[in-house]
């Protein structure tokens, strides 16, 4: 393998850096979308008469840029760093990886403009405009932008790029991270094709809803989750400098997750016209996932026993483990909320919004941020401009997330019970207003935290050092 690594480095660090920058940039835009949309709930939307910034469209920007801008770029940055190190081989493509990177940013940009121009698809988390929609109304003609097809082609090439080092790796038994990555790429490709094309072209009504439910869930469960856990199995033992506690639990966690997670999708449409056996199956599988998740979380917490000081001294580890506590919380919550009894009250309410924020941001977003905190000094070759700002970033984000979660959970319960009690609809709005205000405030905390982090990254990349931290002479 030395001949290949001699000609080019194992990891293209510039690419990892570019992915992190892109991830952060889309993340900040997405956060502003969420912030503005939350103002609509307070009757204080700043652009009420601007068609291109209509709150409904801005909401789509918030969710789609989180998924395809922030999470995809952030996770791929971690994979680009980890996979060559785990396999001892570089990615298949060299310059072409950069082309894929830019094509992906173009896809996200087309999604951004397409959604604002009113060209969304009616597929939750897959609103990415699809071209060639016969008879579709185009506010601005965007049939030249078949984003969905570009995504499929692009993702296949990305998969080939990242599979090659795994397949060519000499060792027969893969490390845990690589199980997750290997399954994750094929799952994502299958999920995207299933969710974006079948309900759009072949499956009307309730049969399409079953597939849409699978898609909503699989995008989280079969793309973000395996990539995220794969990165945790890589970075946590590396930073703690000790192996994962139990290999057996790792095996159980992966295989049980692989079996039960794909079966969950229909739980997004419980009590709907989808046949009940599918709904019962989804409920049972979802509760099974909670058991699986417990094995994984136990494994990671058993690993850190004896190394608790890392939670205090090492910021990436603190991000990772805070997110794992949130992960266990959301999964436990999921096992409860998925039951048909609890669904009666909480479905359609802000409870679900709280749940999805905790899982998408409180877990996977936190992991990506932890990876960024870990990698950025290595990629830039500079010490952090001001480590204290990173602590502000952590606490503003973690506390903001915690408040937002509980705020929305309580709001959801109030909404659900008022609806069941047949209170006038206006009553549920009046009751929700204070919670929506707290949501905006906690969201603002998160946003301020991210801007602080972006500033710190920028100054670090420039090689600057905060005056507070240059008083002691640097060791050579």
């Amino acid at each position, binding site marked *: 393998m030395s001949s290949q690594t001699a000609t080019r480095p194992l990891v293209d660090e510039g690419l990892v850096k570019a992915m992190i920058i892109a991830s952060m940039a889309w993340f900040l835009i997405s956060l502003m979308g969420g912030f503005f949309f939350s103002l609509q709930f*307070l009757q204080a939307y700043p652009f009420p008469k601007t*068609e291109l910034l209509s*709150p*409904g*469209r801005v*909401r789509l920007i918030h969710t789609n840029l989180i998924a395809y801008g922030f999470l995809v770029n952030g996770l791929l940055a971690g994979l680009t760093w980890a996979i060559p190190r785990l396999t001892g081989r570089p990615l298949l493509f060299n310059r072409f990886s950069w082309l894929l990177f830019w094509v992906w940013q173009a896809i996200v940009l087309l999604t951004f403009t397409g959604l604002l121009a*009113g*060209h*969304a698809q*009616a*597929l939750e988390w897959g*609103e990415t405009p699809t071209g060639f929609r016969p008879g579709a*109304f185009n*506010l601005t003609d965007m049939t030249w932008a078949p984003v969905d097809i570009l995504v499929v082609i692009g993702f296949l090439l990305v998969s080939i790029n990242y599979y090659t080092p*795994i*397949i060519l790796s000499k060792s*027969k*038994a*893969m490390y845990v991270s*690589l199980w997750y990555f*290997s*399954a994750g790429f*094929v*799952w994502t490709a*299958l999920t995207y094709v*299933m969710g974006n094309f079948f309900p*759009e072209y072949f499956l*009307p*009504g*309730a*049969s*399409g*809803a*079953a*597939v*849409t439910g*699978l898609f909503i869930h699989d995008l989280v469960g*079969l793309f973000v989750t395996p990539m995220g856990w794969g990165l945790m199995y890589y970075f946590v033992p590396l930073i703690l400098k000790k192996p994962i506690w139990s290999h057996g639990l790792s095996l159980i966690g992966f295989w049980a997750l*692989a*079996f039960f997670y794909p*079966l969950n*999708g*229909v739980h997004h449409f419980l*009590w709907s*016209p989808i*046949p009940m056996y*599918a709904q019962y199956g989804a409920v049972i599988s979802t509760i099974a996932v909670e058991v699986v998740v417990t094995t994984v979380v136990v494994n990671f917490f058993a690993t850190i026993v004896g190394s608790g000081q890392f939670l205090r001294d090492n910021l990436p580890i603190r991000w990772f483990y805070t997110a794992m506590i949130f992960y266990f919380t959301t999964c436990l919550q999921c096992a409860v909320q998925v039951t048909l009894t609890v*669904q*009666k*009250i909480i479905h*359609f*309410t802000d409870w679900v*919004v709280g749940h999805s924020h905790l899982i998408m941001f409180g877990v996977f977003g936190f992991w990506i941020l932890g990876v960024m905190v870990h990698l950025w000094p290595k990629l830039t070759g500079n010490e952090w401009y001001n480590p204290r700002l990173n602590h502000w970033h952590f606490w503003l984000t973690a506390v903001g997330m915690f408040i937002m979660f509980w705020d929305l959970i309580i709001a959801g319960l109030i909404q659900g019970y008022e*609806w*069941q009690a*047949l209170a006038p*609809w*206006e009553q549920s*709005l*009046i009751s929700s207003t204070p919670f929506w205000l707290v949501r905006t405030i906690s969201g603002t905390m998160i946003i301020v935290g991210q801007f602080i982090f972006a500033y710190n990254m920028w100054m670090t990349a420039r090689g600057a050092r905060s005056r507070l931290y240059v008083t002691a002479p640097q060791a050579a």
Partner: protein
Amino acid sequence: MERFSTVFLIAGVAFFGVSVFVMAWMPFVHMRDIPYQPLEQVSQEMIPEFAQLAEMFPDAFKRYYPAGVTPVSYAKALRLGRDIYVAEACWHCHSQYVRPVSNESIRFGPVSVAAEYANALEFPQLFGTRRVGPDLIREHGKHTNDWHVAHFWNPPDIAPTSVMPRYPWFYEAAPTEAEPDRYVLNERGIAIITFVQWLGSWLEEYPATLYNLNAAGAR
């Protein structure tokens, strides 16, 4: 279990296949005998609100729907109305199915069944997953065209606590100081109101719900 081929083929492909078989293919087979209604069929039976929109806005209607009050114009308005409903993400704050729980059949109307969604205007379906505003699948006739015309212009004018956005781009001209009640819809305005009024219009009779009880002063 730790080899690439095992993980790729069993966890990646086979387990995914099992999930699609159980959770997508089986429901599909279960429901595939429900007859599918293309748009031409849906538009055969016009709602009275569509003809009323033509009377309310004769100039605009003639300009955008030159075929007059016919199934052709009706189909055009429904299609466009649905596309706007999707483009503006209406379905992210308004669901489109009534569940058999939580007193929803009293609030909204009869519980939804699968056959109601086997048509071109629920393709892809618009079930939705969140209710900031009420469910809309039984919306037909709950509010008058007048109500919708004023409501889309600025929802808090009608319901002061409403958090629904305004949609001034559904109108040809803004109401002036001299004529504050003069709203003129454009093509999109006529379409979205037609689509919203269509939702639930297939029921045999207008259901007794919380809304008409409230209207009768029984709140």
